[in-house]
């Protein structure tokens, strides 16, 4: 057994790692914070029809690390690097995102406002916010000087988007303003967006709240696209109700889009702030016209184990034809420790071609 081990601080305290004119390492990294995760996922599908990697079996390796450091009073710098690779079992080929600088930004903040400059997460309800978050180069200003309210304005050039609405896949500029507030027991948020060559204007409205274990959320979104894409007004609406008691929870809801068009999401599926149900069915109906989606799910946790199950019944119109989609799924999670979690799910997607998917995940956070 080790009797004692000198910490890095003690080593540096004696000046072992400093030079005469250089900044001592201890000073250089004082306050620097490192956080992130590493994650492994194994996917197995009995149909390749709906698999993004077009393979029945694949292994996915993902990692992200963020360094955050104060650089001056009220000023912080942050850099995030990530990697996301898929190893396709069929031929051993690799695909995905190589190691890159995902974000690099500076943020000034005081009690009433903050200003963030650099490559950063778009972080809006209509963009992709999961791992490999949608990013843009730009600035975001937030004002919190009014009690119960937050106001935001942002402008990004070369912002990511996760859809193929047009043949051109060049990144576009995204502009956004938002007002988020609370009125008694009701929260409300209103966002407005514009994306060059894609969206002339889009508005996202949400109200939500909780009452004695019950929760509710309602959304309405409308968008006018660039005339080269569509002259029809796109719209989305959804409601969701939930109830949670101790470790048990249930929720259900309904979403729909206009028969003239439902293009409102820049995420192209899951990972944004839209009301949705299911695991894989959301990718089938996202941005489609004439969507009707009904979903319900239940979940419970017992110590380190959590279980959940759900069912989704969808329909939409594509190419003048009606398409029905249903999904049933079950999932189990095990929280091995505070830092390490594992989970599995099985999803059965019923469509023109049925697709059943099994996924295992192990994730370590630091």
């Amino acid at each position, binding site marked *: *057994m*080790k*009797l*004692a*081990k*000198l*910490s*890095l*601080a*003690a080593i540096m*305290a004696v000046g072992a790692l400093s030079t005469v004119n250089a900044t001592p390492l*201890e000073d250089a*990294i*004082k*306050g*620097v*914070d*490192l*956080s*992130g995760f590493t994650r492994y996922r194994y996917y197995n599908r009995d149909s390749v029809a709906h698999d993004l990697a077009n393979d029945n079996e694949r292994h996915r390796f993902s990692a992200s690390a963020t*360094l*955050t450091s*104060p650089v001056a009073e009220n000023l*912080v710098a*942050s850099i995030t690097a990530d990697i996301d690779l898929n190893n396709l079992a069929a031929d051993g080929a690799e695909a995905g995102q190589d190691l890159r600088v995902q974000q690099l930004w500076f*943020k000034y*903040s*005081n*009690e009433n406002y*903050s200003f963030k400059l650099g490559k950063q*997460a778009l*972080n*809006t*309800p209509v963009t992709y*916010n*999961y791992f490999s*978050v949608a990013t843009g180069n730009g600035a975001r200003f*937030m004002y*919190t000087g009014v*009690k*119960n309210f*937050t106001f935001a304005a942002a402008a990004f050039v070369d912002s990511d988007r996760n859809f193929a609405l047009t043949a051109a896949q060049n990144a576009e500029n995204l502009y956004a303003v*938002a007002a*988020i507030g*609370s009125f*008694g027991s*009701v*929260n409300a*948020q209103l966002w407005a967006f514009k994306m060059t060559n894609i969206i002339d204007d889009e508005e996202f409205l*949400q109200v*939500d*709240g*909780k009452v004695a274990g019950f*929760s509710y*959320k309602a959304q309405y979104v409308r968008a006018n696209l660039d005339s080269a894409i569509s002259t029809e007004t796109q719209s989305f609406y959804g409601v969701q109700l939930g109830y949670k008691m101790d470790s048990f929870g249930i929720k259900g809801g309904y979403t729909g889009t206009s028969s003239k068009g439902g293009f409102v999401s820049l995420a192209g599926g899951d*990972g944004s702030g839209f009301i949705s149900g299911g695991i894989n069915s959301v990718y089938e109906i996202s941005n489609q016209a004439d969507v009707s989606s009904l979903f319900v799910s239940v979940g419970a946790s017992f110590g380190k184990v959590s279980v959940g199950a759900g069912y989704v019944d969808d329909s939409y119109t594509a190419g003048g034809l009606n398409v029905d989609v249903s999904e049933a799924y079950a999932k189990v999670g095990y929280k091995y420790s*505070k*830092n390490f979690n594992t989970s599995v799910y099985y999803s059965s997607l019923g469509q023109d071609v049925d697709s059943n998917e099994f996924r295992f995940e192990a994730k370590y*956070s*630091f």
Partner: protein
Amino acid sequence: MFKIVISICLLVSISFAAEESTYVFEAKGKFAEELKTLLEKYSKDGHIDVKVLKLSDSKKNGGIMSALLASGNDNADIDRGQKIYNSNCFKCHGINAKESSYANARVLSTLSKEELINQIENYKMSPSYGGSTKFVMNNAVETVNSRDIESVVEYILNIDKKSTKQINKSTNTKPNTASTSYLK
């Protein structure tokens, strides 16, 4: 076998004129428990002046750099926590952490230490985490480091005492946290 990891920082204050030496050790497991007990006994007897710090879960989870650099004076600091709380939190959560400006936000004073740390870390690490207030919360905590989180959580847990000035500002003389005990 004990799973806890204890970092023991011995601040051996040898008061020869103005010169003072500080030594930092780290120990784990059962040996650490025994050493901690021994040091506490000696400290109470007045033989030596020591500070014993337990490396908390948040440091193991939140920030390697911060944990590596953690010395006695840099750990959870309630005064610093108060400053962070007043700057980032109090407008929505109230001066005593018993309010909630947003309808579905939880009242901080009802949460445990683990819940508070988990919530802040999750909001910090993922813009997709949380309910309708995730955009507001991510903005509020995305620049705090693990030591800041520890400090603000300690402040929240002791906010009533702090407001009535029952918390001794000198962390060297008053044990006041669950994860960090101070002996003198």
